[in-house]
């Protein structure tokens, strides 16, 4: 009798556990259907970029993604997580995973092999190999877009090369732009009567030689007809008058000398200003630290000509500890010369938007001319573009220039969400001693004291 009572009691307990278990499973199922999933970090380093989200917002019809991947592939887990992020953000995305070896019929039907993604949207198809976020978004963007955007690199004035093995080339950003589905072409302006009509963005990377007056006029006309330009300068411009007067036309002025920043720089080299605080702007949104080796100082032109501008100095040197070195630069010796140098905080990146242009007949026309001017080009060369937030700054600038044109900028590197910890040797030693020695020692001493007192009581 007693045994049967005990058995009943145990059965009751067991049933309670099972019922609660089922209720909790149900709660989990519900939470899996309706859930909140949001990256609240400032760096947004593990979530989809803003550009991807903007592209996904435009997706209103079903998009099927077939992922042909072996689940033993080392990149399988991260791909699953990444695609899951896409699916969470847009319910129209349907994902199917398959292994070519286990599912050969489907593979033959689609003509695919392992380690690739196939996207189907309406009657269009896109293939993606080595699926990174930028490639996946590029493919979705391409499926949604009506036409590819065209980007010209200006040539003929000693600009940086796009070929990878050349010194100081900008091949990494060129290939990043290609992955983002841009059509890219070189432009020798002297061979054309104007900047081509199909030019969505013109990139001028480090011109070293003066341009002809006619070329300057063509660039000004392009800017005044809602043209979009990215112009990065170099400290070694020979006969830079043409460029300076063109920049003046866009509302930007250049200081004649290298910017030296004692306050915030990279590795103690004051000729490499490093910036982590920016003026709030589309381009600088969530931008991590950037640095600019040997940069010219810029400023907003005091007087603007030919129309209305909206100019913003996005990146500036330290307010109190920077100056323009106008005299001869000595690689070894960096010293403020009160006779020639100008103690001033200068801009390093300026975004200028021309909203109205005054015509010769004094009428005013609304335009949307945009230019991003950088005092330095080294930050986008292959040596530096993947470091810190440099690549992001460039791609965000391109995105701003092409705003409302379905363009996107995705993180160029995995290292672009770095919050630099600037530690001197003394600081390192201090942190190490406090963390590894002093805190544990205090705990041990406290413990010994308490245990000793208790034993003696």
């Amino acid at each position, binding site marked *: 009798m007693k045994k049967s009572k*005990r058995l009943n*009691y*145990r059965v009751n*307990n*067991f049933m*309670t*556990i099972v019922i*609660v*278990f089922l209720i*909790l499973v149900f*709660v*989990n199922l519900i*939470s*899996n259907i309706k*859930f*909140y*999933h*949001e*990256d*609240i*970090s*400032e*760096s*947004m*380093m*593990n*979530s989809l970029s803003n550009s991807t989200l903007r592209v996904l917002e435009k997706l209103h019809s079903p998009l099927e993604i077939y992922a042909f991947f072996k*689940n*033993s592939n080392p990149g*399988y*887990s991260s791909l*699953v997580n990444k695609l899951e992020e896409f699916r969470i953000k847009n319910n129209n995305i349907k994902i199917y*995973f398959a292994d070519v070896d286990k599912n050969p019929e489907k593979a033959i039907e689609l003509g695919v092999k392992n380690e690739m993604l196939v996207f189907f949207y309406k009657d269009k198809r896109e293939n993606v190999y080595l699926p990174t976020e930028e490639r996946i978004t590029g493919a979705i963007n391409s499926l949604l877009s009506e036409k590819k955007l065209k980007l010209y690199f200006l040539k003929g004035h000693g600009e940086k090369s796009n070929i990878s093995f050349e010194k100081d080339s900008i091949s990494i950003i060129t290939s990043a732009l290609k992955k983002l589905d841009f059509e890219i072409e070189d432009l020798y302006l002297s061979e054309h009567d104007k900047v081509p009509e199909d030019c969505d963005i013109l990139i001028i990377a480090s011109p070293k030689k003066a341009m002809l007056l006619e070329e300057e006029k063509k660039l000004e006309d392009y800017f005044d007809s809602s043209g979009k330009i990215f112009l990065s300068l170099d400290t070694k411009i020979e006969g830079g008058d043409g460029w300076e007067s063109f920049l003046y036309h866009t509302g930007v002025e250049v200081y004649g000398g290298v910017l030296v920043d004692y306050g915030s720089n990279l590795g103690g080299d004051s000729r490499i200003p490093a910036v*982590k605080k920016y003026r709030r702007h589309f381009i600088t949104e969530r931008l991590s630290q950037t640095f600019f080796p040997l940069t010219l100082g810029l400023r907003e032109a005091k007087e603007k000509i030919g129309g209305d501008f909206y100019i913003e100095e996005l990146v500036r040197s330290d307010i109190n500890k920077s100056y323009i070195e106008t005299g001869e630069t000595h690689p070894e010796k960096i010293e403020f010369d009160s006779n020639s140098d100008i103690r001033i905080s200068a801009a390093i990146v300026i975004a200028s938007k021309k909203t109205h242009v005054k015509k010769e007949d004094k009428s005013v026309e609304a335009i949307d001319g945009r230019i991003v001017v950088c005092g330095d080009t080294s930050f986008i060369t292959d040596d530096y573009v993947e470091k810190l937030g440099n690549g992001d700054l460039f791609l965000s600038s391109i995105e701003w220039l092409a705003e409302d044109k379905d363009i996107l900028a995705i993180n160029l590197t995995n290292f672009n*969400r*770095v*919050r*630099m*910890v*600037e*530690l001197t040797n003394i*600081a*390192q030693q201090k*942190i*190490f001693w*406090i*963390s*590894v*020695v002093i*805190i*544990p020692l205090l*705990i*041990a001493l*406290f*413990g*010994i004291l*308490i*245990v000793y007192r*208790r034993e003696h009581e």
Partner: protein
Amino acid sequence: MKTILNITMKEFKSYFYSPLAYVVLCVFSILSGYFFTAIIFETKNANAFSSFVGVLSELFLILIPVITMKLFAEENKAGTFELLLSYPLKSWHIVCGKFLGAFLFTMTMLIPVVFYISFLQMYSVPDYGLIITSLIGLVMLIMTFVSVGLFSSVITKSQVVASISGFGILLLLWAIDWFKAHVNYTFSRFLSYISLKHNFNWFVQGIVDTRAIVLFATFTVFMLLVTVKIIEDKRYSS
């Protein structure tokens, strides 16, 4: 509620009467300090704090079963468990009190982390969103780990067995999605969903995911309920 609070405080204080607590605290602070400095000096990136929290979670995987092993196993072995059951206390009061006591003690282990965050504030511009989500994830994980430790402590009289079985259960739940490479996509998603590590990873990535919060909370509730039922069974038997 007052009963639970009393048991919680008694349990919390009892940790500090034993040298084991100081050994655990000391070892943990040396290891956490070492890993923090190693990670930050190597990466020079304040966002690597999330990697550090990832390492902490693995330290807790080992240390929490050691912290919780005594909760019931000690009383079982010393024969005071029956005495405890004879008090006019409800089983869930005992379980909740002991759970909160162990949880509070584990939280004291995180005090050095406040110093680490202040170092980041002094020498960098830390991402507080990332830090907050990482810490929320760690707290949720500690809750779950302590509930499993409590369960493993109630099923045996031996503290060593309680510690090892607790560690075994946690390791299984932690790494269950390691098998996902060998199963189909749907089942691999299920394994990821129940894996503690997978759910914890959302938090260290700066993501707040209500599915992970619900999973940790329901798992903790379930383990506490099972512990309560085992105690009730023992109480009935005695």
